[in-house]
């Protein structure tokens, strides 16, 4: 069994006072005996991540630090996913620079196009992130890994350069907001709706600098893919991390993915939360975030008539197996509306392969959708579905800022995969119930 030396074993014993799981994970990665929210601490990191957009800057800064080698070539992950497969010559040069750095440094976790996918779908799938890990990545959606009970947060390229050189980074220990979700989920309501509703409730800076701990009875029944979606969008409320406790679903997910040892941390009942928010979701409908902020949410019934030009199903938020499965259930035997382009983006090669083997690709193509290789592509207006002036797109991605998916006068509406798929068929924003599709799993 390999073990990351970055972690202490005796956090609970050392502290003797109640802590949140985020505080415990951070403490375990310091040399200290005590920490409290607000402290600035140096932490040892388990994993350092960058992509084809952020790595080139990080590599340039790394070269200026004055060390020859990265701190540990097995704990750096480089994924070409944003503009890869290369969208143009400049993107090709950036990918080349990252690839050459990976070779030169002997970085084992470099994942080439064809063996890769969207970083935040790929890393958990490959077992590279486990409970209790402290992960930093030069991508704001690094917070996705909190779904597995890890503390993971996004940083910039210079921070990543320093962490690649030293294996350490400074952090401010965040305060934690706890969200307790109660009630029974209605059909076609998933993690995306819970997190959009939450962001609508607290606003795009409602959790600025804070860890968001997602808990309560609803979470206990929430599939792991939905947890990834929720943790992923913590940043959209300004959060530093989105984090879930480890339970049977987590253990089932990580089973067989890694030989590395891990440790689960649990928030103490008396832990000091800056705020606890109780959310009853019994009446919650699928949510749609209107332009131009993820907090600008409305329940599906209040959307009105919004014709769309494009529907995108994919991304680090909703490009996982269950997301595609849900979209396929809705699109089976249907036709994408004549005035809509529907783009499906499996998150990784293995999801793509499974979608091929289990007939999902056929459903999509027969419905008139196009299936893209794994890539961030249109989510950030890169390519593979960029919008023209005045166009509207419903998308399972995470941001609907001005110009996010293309022209500054285009509009992005965020939703779950079921709503995006139904909208693709309807030609306007609408839900699966309008197509009389019943959920296979509630």
């Amino acid at each position: 069994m390999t073990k990351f030396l970055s972690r202490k074993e005796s956090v609970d014993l050392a502290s003797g006072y109640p802590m949140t799981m985020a505080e415990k994970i951070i403490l375990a990665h310091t040399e200290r005996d005590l920490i409290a929210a607000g402290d600035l601490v140096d932490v040892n990191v388990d994993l350092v991540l960058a992509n084809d957009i952020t790595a080139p800057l990080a590599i340039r800064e790394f070269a200026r630090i004055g060390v020859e080698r990265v701190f540990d070539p097995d704990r750096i992950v480089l994924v070409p996913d944003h503009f890869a497969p290369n969208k143009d010559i400049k993107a090709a040069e950036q990918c080349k620079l990252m690839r050459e750095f990976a070779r030169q440094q002997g970085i084992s976790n470099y994942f080439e196009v064809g063996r890769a996918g969207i970083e935040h779908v790929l890393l958990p799938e490959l077992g590279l992130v486990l409970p209790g890990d402290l992960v930093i990545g030069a991508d704001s959606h690094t917070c996705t890994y909190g779904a597995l009970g890890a503390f993971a947060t996004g940083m910039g390229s210079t921070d990543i350069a320093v962490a690649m050189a030293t294996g350490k980074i400074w952090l401010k220990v965040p305060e934690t907001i706890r969200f307790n979700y109660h009630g029974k989920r209605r059909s076609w309501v998933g993690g995306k709706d819970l997190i959009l509703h939450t962001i609508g409730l607290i606003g795009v800076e409602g959790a600025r600098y804070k860890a968001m701990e997602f808990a309560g009875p609803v979470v206990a029944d929430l599939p792991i893919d939905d947890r990834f979606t929720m943790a992923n969008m913590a940043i959209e409320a300004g959060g530093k991390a989105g984090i879930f406790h480890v339970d049977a679903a987590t253990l089932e997910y990580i089973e067989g993915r890694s030989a590395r040892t891990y440790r689960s941390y649990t928030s103490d009942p008396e832990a000091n939360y800056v705020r606890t928010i109780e959310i009853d979701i019994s009446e919650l409908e699928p949510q749609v975030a209107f332009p131009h902020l993820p907090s600008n949410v409305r329940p599906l019934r209040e959307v009105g008539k919004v014709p769309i030009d494009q529907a995108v199903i994919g991304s680090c938020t909703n490009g996982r197996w269950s997301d595609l499965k849900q979209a396929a259930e809705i699109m089976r035997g249907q036709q994408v509306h004549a005035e809509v382009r529907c783009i499906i983006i499996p998150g990784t090669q293995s999801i793509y392969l499974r979608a091929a083997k289990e007939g999902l690709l056929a459903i999509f193509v027969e419905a008139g959708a196009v299936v893209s290789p794994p890539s961030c592509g249109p989510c950030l207006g890169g390519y593979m579905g960029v919008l023209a002036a005045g166009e509207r797109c419903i998308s399972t991605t995470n941001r609907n800022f001005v110009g996010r998916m293309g022209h500054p006068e285009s509009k992005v509406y965020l939703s779950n995969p079921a709503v995006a798929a139904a909208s693709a068929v309807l030609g306007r924003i609408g839900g699966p119930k309008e197509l009389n599709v019943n959920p296979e799993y509630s």
Partner: protein
Amino acid sequence: MTMRGRVWKYGDNVDTDAIIPARYLNTSSSEELARHCMEDIDANFALQVKSGDIVVAGANFGCGSSREHAPVALKAAGVECVIASSFARIFYRNAINIGLPILECSEASEHVEANQELEVELGEGIIRNLSSGRVFRAAAFPSFMLAIIEAGGLVEYTRQRLHNSLTDHE
């Protein structure tokens, strides 16, 4: 460190896609990024911004993506300092790490208008509105961050620390 410049004023939640649209992230060249800075929300900015100008904005400046290209673009465009009532955390780190001075000050954000002239004393956190005569005080930096700023950024700070730990072992 005293800075003096003309104000570009923006509202709340200026996101990093607004500061530098992702379609230009296929390069790390600061000059090229500067040419497209703020393009989608203010087409005049990149054309008219002058070296030494100051950006003043509302809450949550720099929210969204982790792209360091955002503070890099602002700095390369000539912006000497960003003042906002609050900053998104990744942008805050990135700005300090690359040596773009930033100050948190709600009062200044509220009472400063476009094209006014400001004088900023970074160490003291004092912002003087030379056009209106008002003076504002910004939140002080934690000493730890001031050390990074004084070193000239995180890379320089780390170089010094690595050098010191090497000489300690000798």
